[in-house]
Every structure is written in C-alpha cells, then in structure tokens.
C-alpha cells in the first residue's frame, strides 16, 4: 500500500503536463521557479531530441563524418595525426576544475528545482484534487 502511494506521489511530483492538460489549474510561484531551475531535466532533453531528430542536423553530421572517412582513406597517417593533435590540444585546454564546478552547480540547481516544483505541486490544492480525487472526497 505504501509503495503504491509513494510511487503515485513521486509520479505526480515529477510529472510535467502540457499546457492543455493544465487548463484551469495555473502554476503557483514555487512551481514556476522550480520549472525554470529544472530546465536541464525537462527542456534540455526535449531540445536535444528535437535537434538529433532534425534531418538538417543529421545531414551535416553524416556529411562531415563521410568527408573525414574519405580523408582517412586517402591520407591515413596525416589525417589521424591531425585528428590526434586536435583532440589532445582541445583536451589539454580544458580546465577540469571548472567542468566539475559547472556540473556540480548544474546538478544542485536541478535538484533544487525538482524539489521546488514538487513542493509547489503538492501545495496546489486544485491540482491535487484533480490527480487524487479519492483523497479529496475522503477529506
């Protein structure tokens, strides 16, 4: 019983409805800020999927890969040496402390955002009534 309730609550907390599903139940301020802060979990994934499914992106990617393979076939040593130089130069110029800090900050902000939007949703009584009608009747 507990697991079912926990799971349904978790699902409710993490769920993001489309605008049409939210009709009549506006976001409260906490949920709105939580939505902004948890951008990486919801919107970034959507944007990434949209980009990867875009045929223009696929075209550019395939063309570049095919041109590089052709270059590897015709001039293998020169191309591989150039690629290795480029990759090692790029990796050598990355400050991994900054990367770690950026990832830490992003994860903290995202977790805070998820918590805020969950709190905002649980304190939104009309939304709770819509999702858990049996509880609202028993009260």
């Amino acid at each position, binding site marked *: 019983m507990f697991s079912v309730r926990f799971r349904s609550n978790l699902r409710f907390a993490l769920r993001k409805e489309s605008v049409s599903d939210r009709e009549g139940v506006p976001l409260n301020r906490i949920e709105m800020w939580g939505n902004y802060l948890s951008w990486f979990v919801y919107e970034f994934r959507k944007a990434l999927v949209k980009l990867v499914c875009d*045929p223009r992106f696929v075209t*550019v990617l395939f063309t570049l890969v095919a041109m590089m393979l052709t270059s590897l076939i015709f001039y293998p040593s020169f191309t591989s040496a150039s690629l290795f130089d480029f990759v090692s130069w790029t990796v050598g110029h990355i400050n991994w402390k900054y990367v770690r800090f950026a990832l830490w900050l992003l994860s903290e902000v995202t977790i805070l955002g998820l918590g805020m939007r969950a709190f905002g949703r649980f304190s939104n009584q009309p939304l709770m009534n819509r999702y858990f009608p049996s509880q609202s009747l028993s009260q």
Partner: protein
Amino acid sequence: MDTKWSWREGFRFAFAAKFVSREGVPYAYPKGKLEAFGTAILRHLYMLIDWLSRHLQRFHVILLVTAVAAVTALFIFYNIPAFLFLGKLFPPQWIRFFFFIYCECLLAAAGCRAFGRFQNQKLVNEWKSGKLIAAFPGDRTQHTDY
C-alpha cells in the same frame, strides 16, 4: 521543424535526382543556393548513373564497366604497382590528390543539396502531402534532364 522523417524517406528525399508530380510532370520549384550548388556539382554523376543504367545491356558498356572495375580492383589490391604503372603518365600523388578532392567535393555537394532541400519548407510540405514522387537516375521516366 517538427516534421517526422523515417530514414528511408529522408534518404529518398535527399538523394532524389528530381521530383515528379503524381501525374508525371516534373515539379519546378525555386532552389536555394545550397541546393543549386550541390545539384550543379552532382549533375554529371547522376547523368553517368542514368546513362549506365539505361545502356547496361549493351556490349561495349559492359566492357567499359568491367574494365573500370578491374582497374579499381588493381588499385585496391596492388596499389603500388598500379601507381607505378600510371605514374609513367601521371605522378601518383597527383592522382591520389585529384581523387581525394573529387570525392570530398561530391560528398560536400551531396550534403549541401540535402541540407538545402530539408531547409526548403515549401518543398518539404509538398513532399509530406504526398504530391511528389522522387525520381532517381535510371528510372523508367522520360525526364533525363538533371
């Protein structure tokens, strides 16, 4: 652009020599700069494929294709003697560089053309509405103007 593409459909759209309406009339549309550039570079290749597929049953065409395949196999398996043989006529590094540039140009042109087509919203809409058919070199159509 929220249009869904399957891989097969996307490749057909990108590599079609041209588009024909359901009635068989070539579809004329304003081409973007990228597509026009790619089409200009690829035209000779499409014409060659079209010519080969139309005349492949003739004896001298079969002979030509066989000879080209044999020379290609020679290059792949014994590239140094082949280069030495051809090197009497042309320096081998020039030949390699020429083929390298040619292949890169073809790939870049194919990419430019595909990108230009996917960028052309009007063409995409016409294609998605099912009004157009992709014509490829060697198809049994009367339209050989690439």
